[in-house]
């Protein structure tokens, strides 16, 4: 066996990653570049996106600042992206708010970014023939809304459940082009998604202990699953949800 044998190689693949300025999206971009992909990364925060961009391995990458919920930004992005072999939707937000306090504005805020932007962007990319035959689309979903939920997470869960429904329908609709559509469903990952402060560090520490593998995930541990789904190793995998949760949903 050749020392170069690597069924998970992304060599020669052009991959778009949203939400690449932090957390899981950033790890997906970095790890994919190490596996040989040319990255097209997008995010809202100029400085942080720049930081991800400068850390990418190899050459031939591009970046564009975009708020995916903004029509003009989306137009600019669509006209700038190359023909793609892979797309990873990692842009997302959460909000810990008891259901009794949800408002139409909060619903729209979460759904616009977590669900609508990914759905609309996929449609626009397809319409503009920017997704190659046999490409792979990966949505970063969650255990929340698919397998379980947590207090105050009803809207977030709903938006992630919606993503999983979308992925199934899309997988069928695109099967004649051999484009594959899958989701990755992580448990809590060490990112700053709870940075807005409703949840305290003490509460997070308690929560970590509830995981059979005794900790939250690392962003790159989710990225490795995404790489599998982007690579030719998963050519016969579509419509699936890959659970990565340190055993959390076993209990």
């Amino acid at each position, binding site marked *: 066996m050749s020392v170069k044998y690597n069924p998970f190689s992304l060599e020669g693949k052009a991959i778009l990653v949203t939400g690449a300025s932090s957390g899981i999206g950033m790890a997906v971009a970095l790890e994919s570049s190490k596996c040989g992909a040319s990255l097209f990364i997008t995010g809202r925060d100029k400085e942080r996106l720049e930081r991800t961009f400068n850390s990418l391995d190899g050459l031939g990458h591009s970046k564009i600042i975009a708020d995916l919920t903004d029509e003009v930004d989306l137009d600019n992005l669509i006209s700038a992206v190359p023909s793609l072999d892979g797309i990873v939707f990692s842009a997302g937000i959460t909000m*810990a*708010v*008891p259901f009794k*306090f949800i*408002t139409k504005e909060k619903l729209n805020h979460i759904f616009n970014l977590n669900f609508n932007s990914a759905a609309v962007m996929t449609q626009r990319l397809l319409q503009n023939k920017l997704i190659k035959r046999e490409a792979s689309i990966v949505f970063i979903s969650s255990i929340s809304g698919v397998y379980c939920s947590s207090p*105050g997470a009803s809207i977030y869960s709903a938006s992630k459940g919606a993503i999983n429904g979308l992925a199934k329908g899309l997988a069928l609709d695109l099967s004649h082009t051999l484009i594959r559509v899958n989701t990755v469903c992580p448990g809590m990952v060490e990112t700053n998604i709870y940075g*807005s*402060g409703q949840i*305290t560090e003490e*509460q997070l520490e308690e929560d970590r202990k509830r995981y059979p593998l005794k900790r939250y995930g690392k962003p790159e541990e989710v990225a490795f699953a995404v790489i599998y789904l982007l690579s030719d190793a998963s050519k016969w995998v579509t419509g699936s949800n890959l659970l990565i949760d340190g055993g959390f949903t076993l209990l």
Partner: protein
Amino acid sequence: MEVKKFVENFAAQFEESDLSAFSPETKFRDLEEWSSFTALSIIAMVDEIYNVKITGDDIRKSNTVKDIFNIMELKMQ
């Protein structure tokens, strides 16, 4: 800003404890019904009614209802 009204809004986040159980000096953590979910409800109530963003840490370092009220007033300025 009226403390009395705040105490009422605070008490409204509890399902079983009666309003009479609440005063500005109430040590909310001693109430049987108190939980991390009540904390989330208090944060959401302050955001909705007073348009102020308090954090889980603000609640953690408070002991009485008045403590939270004071933090909220500071953040309003």
